[in-house]
């Protein structure tokens, strides 16, 4: 239990938390804004990573590779969206179907279950080697932080536009949205594409960061995303009211999640149990609103005036 080993691991945890934070913003868009639990993301994260790595290996520039990964994720979102709206399949099932299909697609993209790139041979944007002993502008933490701030600014602008407002209205009350002439099906598809694009971008960054894309890299991603959203809201919900800050809160939630994971690993817990731990923690946090209303509300006396 050497405290220095924990301290040394923290910058890596922050970098990872930031990269997963982009993914968590994607989850926030579907789960909080559109009111859909979109399970596509478990597959999309790998799709983004796989496309990015394969594009790099075929000699593409890093920006092109990341753009291709993001677009591939948007296509996955489109698939889920069409399953849900055009084919009338419940959202949660649509996500599961796409996710299952993506498993095969991801294997076909990579040709095998794992593809690695050497950080010395490719000009990567982020890497776990770029955490220390690099010029500050190459530092992965700074690079991802700048990317996140840009993304939040763009999303803040978008959700203030007419189109963005109609997406929010669709998620809040689709009946009202239709009565106000909003094409709710289109909004759902667009939201799913936007969300999965962000998740794939996160996957593209993650695969560069760890130096490989792996068929299992997205397993349980939705749970990590939800954990970030819930932690972010629990910790910063009272102080962050502005939409942009709420998104920042989600990213911070993701960082907190990875710091906690790092501490848990440092404490020497069996890492095989990490996913179980995440699932239990998220389940408890998701239950809190129900428990609060069921067991902790004071009974209101009725008919007091009579």
């Amino acid at each position, binding site marked *: 239990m050497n405290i220095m080993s924990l301290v040394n691991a923290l910058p890596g945890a922050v970098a990872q938390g930031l990269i997963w934070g982009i993914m968590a913003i994607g989850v926030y868009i579907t789960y909080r804004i559109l009111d859909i639990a979109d399970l596509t993301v478990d597959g999309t994260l790998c799709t983004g990573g796989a496309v990015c790595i394969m594009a790099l290996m075929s000699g593409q520039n890093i920006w092109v590779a990341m753009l291709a990964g993001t677009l591939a994720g948007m296509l996955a979102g489109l698939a889920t969206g069409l399953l849900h709206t055009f084919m009338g399949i419940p959202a949660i099932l649509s996500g599961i179907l796409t996710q299952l299909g993506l498993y095969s697609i991801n294997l076909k993209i990579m040709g095998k279950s794992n593809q690695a790139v050497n950080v010395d041979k490719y000009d990567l944007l982020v890497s776990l080697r770029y955490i220390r002993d690099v010029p500050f502008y190459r530092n992965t933490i700074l690079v991802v932080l700048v990317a996140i701030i840009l993304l939040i600014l763009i999303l803040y602008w978008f959700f203030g536009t007419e189109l963005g407002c109609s997406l929010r209205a669709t998620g809040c009350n689709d009946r*009202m949205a239709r009565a106000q002439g909003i094409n709710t099906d289109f909004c759902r598809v667009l939201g799913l594409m936007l969300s999965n694009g962000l998740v794939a971008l996160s996957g593209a960054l993650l695969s560069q960061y760890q130096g490989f894309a792996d068929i299992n890299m997205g397993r349980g991603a939705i749970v990590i995303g939800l954990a970030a959203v819930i932690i972010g809201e629990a910790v910063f919900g009272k102080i962050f009211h502005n939409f942009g800050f709420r998104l920042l809160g989600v990213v911070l939630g993701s960082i907190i999640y990875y710091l906690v994971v790092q501490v848990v690993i440092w404490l020497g817990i069996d890492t095989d149990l990490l996913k179980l731990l995440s699932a239990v923690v998220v389940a408890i946090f998701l239950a809190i609103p129900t428990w609060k209303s069921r067991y902790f509300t004071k009974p209101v006396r009725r008919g007091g005036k009579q």
Partner: protein
Amino acid sequence: MLEIKNISKTFNPGTVNEKVALDDVSLTLEDGDFVTVIGGNGAGKSTLLNAIAGVWPVDWGQILIDGQDVTRLSEHKRAAFLGRVFQDPMNGTAATMGIEENLALALRRGTLRTLRSGIKNHEREAYRELLSKLGLGLENRLTSKVGLLSGGQRQALTLLMATLKKPKLLLLDEHTAALDPKTAAKVLETTDMIVNRDRLTTLMITHNMKDAIVHGNRLIMMMEGKIILDIRGEEKKKLTVEDLLHKFEEVSGEEFTNDKAILG
């Protein structure tokens, strides 16, 4: 203005729950008509309004608004012609969005939503003025979340949203039924004010016979998916609740048993 030609709708056809909700209904509304609709539970009142709004396609028949056939148009496309207020105050507004944002959504009904700003500064002034006319103090709470408003405030706001962009037809589906009597009276008063001011063609469902008689220039009664009474003009003006009950018995051959409709 509105022409409904022989529309029919059956829910759950071919099952034990089969229900003929609309049975060959035809109805024509003139420009500026304010029609009240009454009838017992399951008479087809709400189904008629939903058919016009395009919530689902009708099995048969044709619906024209201002001469344009809208029978095959989807719900959100038809919304360009319609203003709607629902029975449940929760249904008409987006609770997690601000009052001004809700109004801005309504102002853009029937237009293509683009990447222009969702609400412009000059709109806020107009919203403040319109809200102040409701007399509910909402004009000082433009950015408040609609979820914080009372049922009556939400219905008044929904009414404002439905008429912000003048609709060709206003559909009110028992919009005061969920409110306490005092608030209901206030919302009805606002309804009259807006309908008269903008000379809106209106279909208003109510469970209250007195309201149905007092408001509007025409009254229709529905039963078992059919329009069984249609009273207008001078006859409507002289109508009393007793007349209405009497007429109902005459037409239907049974007693009007819905206490809610008599006492309400």
